[in-house]
């Protein structure tokens, strides 16, 4: 019985979401190499093909860097209930994600947590706490 239930559950999950992507992830980012940075959002680009935000980070060695971080497209984010105001300039955020293959300060974000603890852009079908569609 366990086998059948697992399979049925798998089918339901597969049907409950779609992948919204424009560009091939694997040619840009490394699915085995992750980053975690904290800093202040300096710019949000609500643009195609991907929404981007930039974070001023003070690295462990004292250097100041600007991270260029990628989200989904505006229409994919909008269909999940988010707007260009969800992430604001000046927000202090901790971001985790996959590292760019060539440029260490570029990444595909998988988690954006604001200083007050709110998790932004999370809660998709593959994450916990999915927002109502």
């Amino acid at each position, binding site marked *: 019985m366990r*086998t*059948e239930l697992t*399979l*049925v559950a798998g*089918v339901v999950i*597969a*049907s*409950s*979401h*779609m*992948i*919204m*992507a*424009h*560009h*091939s*992830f*694997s*040619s*840009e*980012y490394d*699915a*085995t190499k*992750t980053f975690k940075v904290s800093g202040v959002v300096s710019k949000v*680009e609500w*643009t*195609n*093909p*991907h*929404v*981007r935000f930039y974070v001023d980070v003070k690295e462990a060695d004292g250097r100041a860097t600007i991270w*260029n971080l*990628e*989200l*989904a*497209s*505006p*229409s*994919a984010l909008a*269909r*999940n209930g*988010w707007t260009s105001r969800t992430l604001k300039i000046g927000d202090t955020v901790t971001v985790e*994600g*996959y590292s*760019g*293959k*060539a*440029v260490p300060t*570029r*990444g*595909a*974000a*998988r988690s954006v947590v604001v200083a007050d603890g709110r998790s932004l*852009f999370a809660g*998709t*079908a*593959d*994450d916990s706490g*999915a927002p109502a*569609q």
Partner: protein
Amino acid sequence: MRKIAFIVAIVADLFGLVMPLAAAQGQGGDSQKGVLGPVNALGQEFKLPPAPIGAAPRLPDGTIDLGDGIWVNTRPFSAASSLKPGEELPLLPAAKTLMVARQQADDPNNWCLPMGVVRYSPYPFRFVQNYTHKRPTHLYIMHELMRTFRQIFMDGRKHPPEIDPTWFGHSVGSYDKDTLVIDTVGFNDKTWFDGRGTPHTEQLHTIERWTRVDMGHLVTEVLIDDPGAFSRPFTVRYESTLRPATDDLMEYICQENNQYGFASGVR
């Protein structure tokens, strides 16, 4: 136990519910898992509500109505998706060589160029028939991705004898009972059928059959005939579902801020 599991798998596949990993590679379909769970940038997955059921609606003249909402492909597909197990695409040697030589960075989609007629898109599309004092003469398929449209002539005209090749070719449409049939020639050779780089030549001729099987489901079968790239014609089949009535096409200006290649060192 195994028999039940097999039946479940078959049923799931029939309904297009399981995303085939191989077909999901490349544009719009990386479904691989990374160490943080799903790959792709945050916010790209969203819940797909159940598609409505019931009879497909009709226009006053009895034609199946395709234009009352926006549609989205249920899952990624490739040129090879509809082949039987063990079957391979009938690529001619030159096409095989070209496909092997292609790099992901060369994918036209990565550079905001059009998808062409047969390629998976994770973004919605909409059929729009023009409204004239005569019967509709033109049908447009509006795609959110790249903000592109296809133009299909419904006025009975034939393909011109000579055509300058284009990304979307020259399309004429008609109805076979309740199925919209679109016949297209005059393609350039620049589009890829999928993220694997499956190629075609300017000899490509496609015949699409669009059937709205019920209120919420649209089945597409595309016959791909390209004697320049394949030793025989083959068919690609895929499905789409109707999005909720509250959803509409949204703006997608791909060239606006395309930073493809920077993170990978391609440019």
